[in-house]
């Protein structure tokens, strides 16, 4: 806040100058129009104020005009520039320089099936331009949105190359995916990573990590602008597809003027920023001895004197490494006569900071638009991309998790260079698998190829009436492969601890096809001088189909080198074919009426018919309306226009729908083929719910946009209420009705029914402020602040029981960790509440007569540490003791943050610019699920956090760490607030220093523009969280499993050096 006040103060002190008035005369005039850099601007509009006389500049930025008698003032306008009024005076030749607007008022905003000037937009829309995204070394667009738009919460689920992030616009209102719809040049792409079959990241589910990002294939350098439709009055035009907001991505187009060649490139080094303090060998040995004593299983001979041991293996060092990344994009663009074009090619390559992972992308993009005839315009935009990801070991409970738990007495390699493993003593393997061996030997890859594009034609029937016809397509091919080789490794001098004689190959090739056909008729007319009417009526239909071939085999007699299906043992072949489709048909209508640039109303309606529902339940109607009032245009505001240059109130109301059921036909019951020893069997797949229908979200929004002090400060402030009714939800049934995951397998359990359940409300406010603190001369300073807050509350579950979120605990059982219930937020943590450690006989006496029960049975006071229904000194006492009946469980905290924020400061001094970008999240809890194992102290042979050594003993009572005891699910290892931590953080997300080579020097090397920069990404995280990274999002975008840390791939620290050159 202090920063904000100071920027106001600075802004008030500095007042800019206006041009002095000159006398008027009548004559023909000519001139040229440039931007601040001196680049001539073709297509700028020159109007004689108060008349219809106007012209535009030609490709050389020149104009000529015959001034009618009495003309006194020229109005010069150009998109992205401040409009200027120039007194004509006696001049006949004008050299006009336009200034770019930091205010985005003049920008064109894409609002879905059309565009609007920002000043006319009635709904809640945030925009991000290419400038905001430039030079941020992120591989994917969704990651770049973090901290760039108010109301948009972006969390990286993982730092794994190419993996999905969670993008939530104004909180979570839906269970069947809360990710927005992305529309890339008209091609709609569902943000829900789990929705398209081709996105499954691995051919073998057990190796699957976080789903890959649906947007990982798009080269961020090709993006011109991103417009985020946030409230329903804006998204209603997308009807059922806009319930979670819509992110419209527009790619670059050629601009009139000299053709340009652009090169963007960077090279960077990523590193792991934080390591956990796990036990070294002496600490581990001492701890294992203590555990062995406790469990009565006898100390290991080699640990008889821990202090004599060396430090042992640091497994985090063994799996984390510094890794390079690089990106190169070359583009060519231009426009002449009636055609513009943009052509680009890009290459991105990222090696993972975790052993065995990497990602690369080749991308090509072309956009061409042409005014073929006066009455006909045609255009196309086509992208072709290929990404390749080496996923390595699965993410959750994958390599990082294994490395943290791996005992430090095990070596990575033997002296002869072979992979080391634990020794085998008396038939018992003295430790776990070697994570380095696993990361390096297992193949787990995903190659995705994609072609997407659109083709449109605009037929102009009259000046006002245009028919827009468009066909969009998105075609994906993916090939995933996992190969487990044969291996044999162990400690020198011991028999091999781990042997596999049967190699296993699984492959999964899939294709996904989407086409969309849109027709819309647009009518735009100005009645008189003040009434502007825009009407749109349209029809849209799309179909999405997928089809894949899964195949696997085992037993490669020819060895591990050639990993193809034909080399396996034929008797072991398996196959499968996932296949399905969804279609939707929609009717669209929109009317926008504006009076005198002051009052405006937008009304939309859309009907959607979806194949995801049964006949009779397929159609939904989604109306929306928004009004705005530009107070600053009112005469009574004229007096303070110097201070308040723009002031607009917006009010919106709308409904949107959601039909996402993670695949169609959830209203009926399917029967699924499965393999059995008796041949192919058929398992009942899911419960039906015939009346399943649309989820509806009702959204209300009140917003104000204002600009102060001659646009030195631009701000938007919105409050909203977003309530979803009958939300679509797969209601998890208890095991006794449907079966449930057992021994990590969910084969043959019956999928719970999809239901229309209850009501969730998100209330919130958000603002963005952009302040140009210093604009004078050589030094400029701009500050952008973005702030978002929402509260999420379940209003009703329509009578269904609370929704339980079960968390896997690695090698332990599932634990019910969250409970979503009426009155609370989605995914609220739920469990027992720690009272303290039992350290007195009095406490034991009390517990003997008032037994605690957190394990399903009354716990008996016993000093036998191997009795998992026993309780004794050093164990945890919980609140809510019910005398032998289960202890009361409590709501333990909200995974949603109180607010998220970002602050960007940009400084320009002469040819240098520096930007510092901070993002943060305040409040909210995180469940450190890794600690169930890493702080569990229940089992021999696995490493622990160094802090675990401070466990309770009769002589060490000043601690909150309970004494060890064997067996998972014992009194101390149940879901409790012991494993919850504060999730607040402030991340120094990006610091970037750039230098623009002066134009006169650039010219010598045939360049019009050259910039070099150094950028540091994710430089530091200020947090009290003890895990690797507090930003964990929701597990595979599941809203009831938010902020649960499974030891996922942490976000790396990246230092890059980059170059932008324009020829």
């Amino acid at each position, binding site marked *: 806040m202090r920063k904000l006040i100071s920027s106001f103060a600075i802004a008030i002190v500095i007042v800019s100058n206006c041009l002095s008035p000159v006398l008027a005369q009548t004559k023909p005039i000519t001139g040229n129009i440039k931007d601040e850099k001196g680049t001539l601007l073709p297509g700028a509009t020159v109007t004689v104020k108060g008349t219809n006389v106007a012209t535009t500049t030609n490709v050389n930025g020149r104009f000529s005009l015959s001034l009618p008698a009495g003309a006194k003032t020229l109005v010069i306008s150009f998109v992205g520039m401040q409009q200027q009024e120039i007194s004509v005076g006696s001049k006949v030749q004008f050299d006009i320089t336009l200034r770019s607007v930091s205010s985005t008022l003049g920008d064109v905003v894409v609002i879905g099936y059309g565009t609007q000037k920002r000043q006319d937009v009635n709904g809640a829309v945030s925009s991000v331009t290419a400038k905001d995204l430039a030079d941020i070394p992120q591989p994917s667009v969704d990651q770049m949105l973090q901290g760039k738009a108010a109301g948009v919460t972006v969390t990286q689920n993982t730092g794994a190359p190419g993996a999905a992030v969670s993008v939530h616009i104004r909180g979570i209102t839906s269970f069947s995916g809360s990710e927005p719809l992305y529309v890339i040049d008209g091609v709609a792409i569902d943000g829900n990573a789990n929705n398209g079959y081709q996105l499954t990241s691995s051919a073998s589910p057990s190796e699957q990590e976080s789903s890959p990002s649906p947007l990982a294939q798009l080269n961020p350098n090709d993006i011109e602008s991103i417009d985020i439709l946030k409230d329903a009055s804006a998204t209603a035009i997308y009807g059922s597809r806009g319930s979670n907001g819509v992110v419209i991505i527009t790619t670059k187009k050629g601009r009139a003027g000299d053709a340009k060649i652009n090169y963007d490139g960077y090279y960077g080094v990523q590193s792991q920023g934080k390591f956990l303090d796990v036990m070294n060998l002496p600490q581990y040995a001492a701890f294992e001895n203590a555990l062995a004593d406790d469990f009565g299983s006898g100390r290991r001979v080699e640990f008889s004197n821990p202090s004599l041991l060396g430090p042992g293996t640091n497994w985090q060092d063994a799996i984390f490494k510094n890794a390079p990344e690089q990106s190169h994009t070359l583009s060519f663009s231009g426009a002449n006569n009636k055609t513009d074009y943009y052509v680009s090619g890009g290459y991105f390559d990222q090696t993972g900071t975790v052993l065995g992972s990497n990602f690369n992308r080749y991308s090509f993009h072309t956009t061409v638009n042409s005014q073929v005839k006066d009455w006909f315009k045609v255009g196309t935009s086509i992208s072709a991309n290929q990404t390749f990801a080496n996923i390595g070991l699965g993410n959750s409970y994958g390599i990082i998790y294994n490395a943290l738990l791996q005992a430090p007495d095990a070596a990575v390699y033997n002296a002869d260079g072979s992979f080391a493993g634990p020794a085998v003593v008396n038939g018992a393997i003295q430790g776990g698998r070697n994570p380095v061996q696993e990361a390096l030997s297992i193949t787990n890859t995903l190659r995705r190829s994609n072609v997407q594009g659109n083709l449109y034609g605009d037929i102009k029937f009259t000046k006002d009436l245009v028919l827009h016809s468009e066909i969009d397509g998105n075609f994906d091919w993916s090939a995933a492969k996992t190969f487990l080789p044969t291996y044999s490794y162990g400690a020198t001098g011991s028999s091999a601890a781990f*042997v596999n004689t049967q190699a296993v190959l699984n492959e999964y090739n899939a294709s996904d096809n989407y086409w969309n056909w849109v027709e819309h008729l647009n009518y735009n007319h100005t009645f008189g001088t003040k009434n502007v009417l825009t009407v749109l009526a349209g029809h849209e239909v799309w179909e999405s189909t997928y089809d894949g071939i899964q195949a696997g085999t085992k037993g490669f007699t020819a060895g591990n080198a050639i990993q193809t299906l034909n080399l396996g043992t034929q008797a072991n072949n398996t196959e499968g074919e996932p296949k399905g489709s969804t279609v939707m048909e929609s009717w669209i209508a929109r009317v926008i009426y504006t009076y005198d640039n002051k009052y405006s109303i937008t009304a939309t309606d859309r009907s959607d018919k979806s194949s995801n529902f049964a006949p009779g339940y397929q159609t939904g109607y989604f109306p929306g309306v928004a009004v705005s009032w530009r107070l600053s245009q009112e005469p009574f505001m004229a007096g303070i226009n110097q201070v308040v240059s723009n002031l607009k109130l917006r009010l919106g109301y709308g409904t949107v729908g959601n039909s996402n059921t993670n695949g169609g036909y959830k209203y009926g019951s399917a029967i699924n083929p499965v393999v059995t020893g008796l041949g192919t069997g058929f398992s009942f797949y899911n419960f039906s719910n015939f009346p399943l229908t649309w989820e509806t979200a009702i959204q209300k929004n009140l917003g104000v946009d204002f600009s102060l002090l001659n646009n030195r400060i631009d701000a938007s402030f919105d409050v909203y209420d977003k309530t979803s009714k009958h939300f679509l939800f797969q209601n998890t049934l208890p095991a006794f009705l449907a079966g449930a995951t057992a*021994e990590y397998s969910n084969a043959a359990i019956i999928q719970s029914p999809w239901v229309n359940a209850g009501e969730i409300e998100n209330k919130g406010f958000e603002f963005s402020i952009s302040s140009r603190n210093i604009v004078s001369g050589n030094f400029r300073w701009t500050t952008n602040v973005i702030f978002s807050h929402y509260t999420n509350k379940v209003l009703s579950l329509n009578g269904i029981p609370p929704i339980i979120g079960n968390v896997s605990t690695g090698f332990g059982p599932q634990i019910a960790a969250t409970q979503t219930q009426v009155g609370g937020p989605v995914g609220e943590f739920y469990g027992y509440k720690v009272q303290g450690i039992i350290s007195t006989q009095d406490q034991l006496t009390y517990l003997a007569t008032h037994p605690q029960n957190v394990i399903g049975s009354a716990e008996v006071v016993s000093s036998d540490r*191997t009795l998992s229904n026993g309780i004794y000194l050093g164990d945890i006492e919980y609140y809510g003791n019910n005398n032998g009946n289960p202890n009361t469980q409590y709501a333990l905290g909200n995974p949603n943050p109180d607010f998220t924020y970002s602050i960007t400061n940009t400084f320009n001094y002469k040819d240098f610019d520096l930007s510092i970008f901070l993002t943060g999240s305040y409040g909210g809890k995180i469940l450190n699920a890794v600690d169930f194992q890493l702080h569990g102290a229940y089992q021999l042979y696995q490493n622990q956090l160094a802090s675990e050594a401070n466990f309770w003993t009769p002589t060490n009572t000043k601690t909150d760490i309970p004494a060890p005891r064997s067996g998972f699910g014992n009194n101390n290892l149940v879901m409790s607030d012991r494993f919850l931590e504060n999730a607040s953080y402030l991340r120094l997300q990006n610091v970037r220093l750039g230098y623009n080579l002066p134009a006169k020097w650039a010219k010598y090397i045939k360049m019009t523009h050259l910039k070099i920069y150094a950028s540091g990404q994710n430089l530091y995280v200020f947090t009290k969280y003890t895990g690797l990274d507090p930003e964990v999002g929701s597990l595979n975008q599941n809203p009831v499993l938010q902020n649960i840390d499974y030891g996922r791939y942490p976000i790396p620290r990246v230092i890059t050096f980059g170059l932008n050159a324009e020829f």
Partner: protein
Amino acid sequence: MVIVTSTGCKKDFFNRPPENQATVGTYYQTTAEVQSSTNILYAAPWFGFNGKAFLAIGDLQSGNARCDAGTDGEFDAFRNFSEGNATLAVQSTWNSLYTVIAQANALLNNLPTAAPASVPTAVVNNALGEARLMRAAAYFYLVRLFGNVPIITNPAPFVGSFQTVPTNPVTDVYKFMIIDLQFAEANCTPGVANTGHVSSASASALLSKVYLYEQDYADAKTEAEKVINSGEFGLLGLDNTSGTYVNLFETAFNNNLESIIALQWTSNGGYGFGNQIQSVIADGENGNYLTGTGDGYGELGPTWDLQDAFKAEGDTIRRHGCIMLPGEYYPELHKAEGGYTVPLAVNEQGTHASMKKYVVGTPADNNGNSAAQATSNNTYIMRYADVYLIEAEAIIGISSGTTPGKGIPLSASSSDPTALKYLNLVRQRAGVPALTSFTYQQLINERRLEFAIEGDYWYDLQRLDGFNSATHPVAEAIIAAQNRGGSSGSGTAPLYIDWTRNTLYIPATDANFLMPIPATDVAADPALTGSPVPYKF
């Protein structure tokens, strides 16, 4: 273009049934489809129970097997009766058995209306019978392990209100199983158990066991005799000499003449579809050498108590098929290398032995049909030897004049010729001398040796004190006398003979004879921990 769009899409355009799955409306249309509809009930749904809980409960808890404390989180609690409602194997047991029930219910609720008249009624009823038998088999485990449990036949009414579903009393669950099994007995095709599908006599066999547990000895005897008289089954190695007791547990002998009800695994479906037992208990020594598939965790070893029990009986055939001792030779393992000789240092879980039963070796030993954590050998739910011993027990039960609620005294003895005949057939195959009279204690010991490491002994101990008994003095006395210790000081002398037995006695209490319902389901339905409510038949 405007004209085209104004007409809208046809109705069929929006009809998108699954494209790679059948649906309830399209399946069950032919005889072959109805026949294969029950395959699922023999495999995947049982996986979570079969893998670890099956032995953790049946053999570890009963004192046949041991594991060291703190070495395996899953088995740990079962070594000393301390499993809680968050213990994974407890959760897996409940979840898996109810998955069997859910699949059986789905079949029972959909097949009768979906099958057209063109499918013969007998075919439909046979499938319904199989489903009801498998549902009863799952309930039989559930009721023995958890006591009062909810009886579910149709989940539909509870989909939106499951938080108030109560449990039903043990006696009602037994009554329910008997109704199911009587239906199966009446409707399943006779004589087909060697195909892997259960037959009418399979239902009789399970029914006899259920009656035996209920202490309805007369009915148990009647049902056991139905099975014997059906002539469908025999003992491998006695009635058919193509194999021996040891072969019973090998892949090549799936669905042999002794197999009454067996789970039908495949190595070709990946995790969740194959038999996991080998990977769990095969000796980890020599680095997964036995399995050759990167698994073999040796999580259990045979207790001294079990080893001594074999020794005391002079029982080498069954011991050889159940437990591997140092230096012993198994030609069926690592056939290609001329067989497998157990290393002298073998010492699974400190027992100087390791497990053999259900250990089938490498993919090569199984004609390629084994994979990591997925072998394709069957798991027995019931085999024919059980029927002989049930017949003998029913006879001694009748003669001992026991009243329900109190078990047959261990000292009760019988020299009934019929009982002796069947008991001695089992002994004859095992190569131990025939008896001229026997006590109930001897019979229970016979069961233990015959079915060791087949997940059964715990239930025998549990019922010694009578049907549905809240107290277990007899069983507790047996458990209290079992040495469950390992050994120490081994490994340096030649032949690894310098070890000493440790003693470890772990007494059980009455509360240990039932497991708590898993916390995850109690969280969803708190009524599960309330009083049971009579079931409305």
